[in-house]
């Protein structure tokens, strides 16, 4: 089995601080602050985010088979249960962003408990601040531009529909290699 964090305590803290800042300032592209070698199909940042947040309380859904080595690695280091039911997933991992169509398949939480919702971690073909979508909302002073390579137009449209149901919703991290960007449900996305 490939090793996980060098230091469970300090690597998870470093990665979490980058996630906290990314979630607080949506659209800002961030590194993870650590070096992590993940199994084949897992991007470095996806592995780091999941090792930081997963444990026995957080069912994981993924667009892979349960016996895939990537899932085995995540489960070995975190003890997270694997689920095939989208609504039960606390975290969902997409290794191929072209297959993410309908975020509403996952759990958006309830009006009373919007926090009990799935967080998506989506691997992309690249993220930069080119003008594909314009982001506004909490954490963004005026506007931020973001370009997510490989994401489908359907997905962007479906996310806009889902966001109208605020405060319920789905929060997302888009990942490429060792970089990631957060899009909480409050972030408005418009096509440029």
């Amino acid at each position: 089995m490939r090793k996980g964090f060098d230091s469970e305590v300090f690597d998870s803290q470093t990665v979490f601080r980058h996630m906290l800042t990314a979630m607080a300032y949506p659209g800002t592209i961030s590194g993870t602050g650590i070096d992590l070698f993940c199994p084949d199909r897992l991007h470095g940042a996806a592995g780091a985010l999941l090792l930081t947040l997963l444990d026995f309380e957080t069912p994981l859904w993924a667009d892979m088979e349960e016996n895939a080595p990537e899932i085995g690695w995540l489960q070995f280091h975190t003890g997270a249960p694997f689920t095939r039911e989208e609504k039960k997933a606390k975290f969902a991992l997409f290794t191929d962003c072209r297959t993410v169509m309908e975020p509403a398949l996952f759990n958006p939480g309830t009006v009373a408990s919007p926090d009990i919702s799935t967080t998506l971690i989506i691997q992309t073909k690249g993220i930069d601040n080119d003008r594909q979508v314009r982001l506004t909302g909490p954490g963004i002073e005026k506007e931020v531009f973001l370009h997510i390579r490989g994401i489908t137009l359907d997905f962007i449209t479906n996310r806009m529909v889902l966001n109208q149901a605020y405060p319920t919703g789905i929060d997302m991290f888009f990942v490429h290699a060792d970089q990631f960007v957060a899009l909480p449900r409050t972030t408005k996305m418009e096509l440029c």
Partner: protein
Amino acid sequence: MPLAYNFAYLDEQSKKMIRRAILKALAIPGFQVPFGGREMPLPYGWGTGGIQLTASVIGPDDRLKVIDQGSDDTVNAISIKAFFKKTAGIAITEETRAATIIQTRHRIPETPLQKGQIMVFQVPIPEPLQFIEPKKSQTVKMHGFEEYGSMHVKLYEDIAKFGRIATAFDYPVQVHQRYIMSPSPIPKYDNPKLHQSPAIHLFGAGREKRIYAVPPFTDVVSLDFEDYPFELEQWDGACAVCGSQNSFLDEIITDDKGTRVFICSDTEYCRNNAGKSNP
């Protein structure tokens, strides 16, 4: 001597659970996220919620500032600083500008906060509707369906009785045009500092086991009426130590004949300001 505790006291699984709650709190500004609050080695009411947040966020490179009612030197601030020095070997600062994390009991520093700084508020009563509706099962529904009329009735009753809104601290705010939130018992003087602040504001209630947040650049509006707008406290004099007229002042009785002076509640701001006027 080797550390007798895990870094920052909490075990790693507790930190993970709290970290997940923090991310959800930032994604739903003003919403109180329930979390599995842990027993801390100090009583409820001494900042157990804030300490759990700080412990889950802090790393070896951080510089921590802790204030209690604006002061760096009061007992709660001193003991929390001692706690993190002992369990995490963390660098302590009194300078607002130099701090990466500021844990606070009931004040926001006068020095403007910067992008990336993290404020951690200690919250005794996270539910702003508790004094209107004591049943948690009901307040959850009131938040869910945005049933906030009774909050305005409470403020109106103040006007009917006293001719003005008499709430001076823990003054309710509406965050991101959605949730009504308790800003913790900060004076209402500090409420405008939350509005569109560049910093990250995290709130932790240990006894009530709730975490909530105001992300940066988020609308935070103090509730009021068109004909009774939200107003800040004002003082006739200036700070007796530094002469500041733009700072929240505490009244201090100086003898047993009722002589009183007003001085800045924010000790770090007052010291820097006094240094500027008398170099």
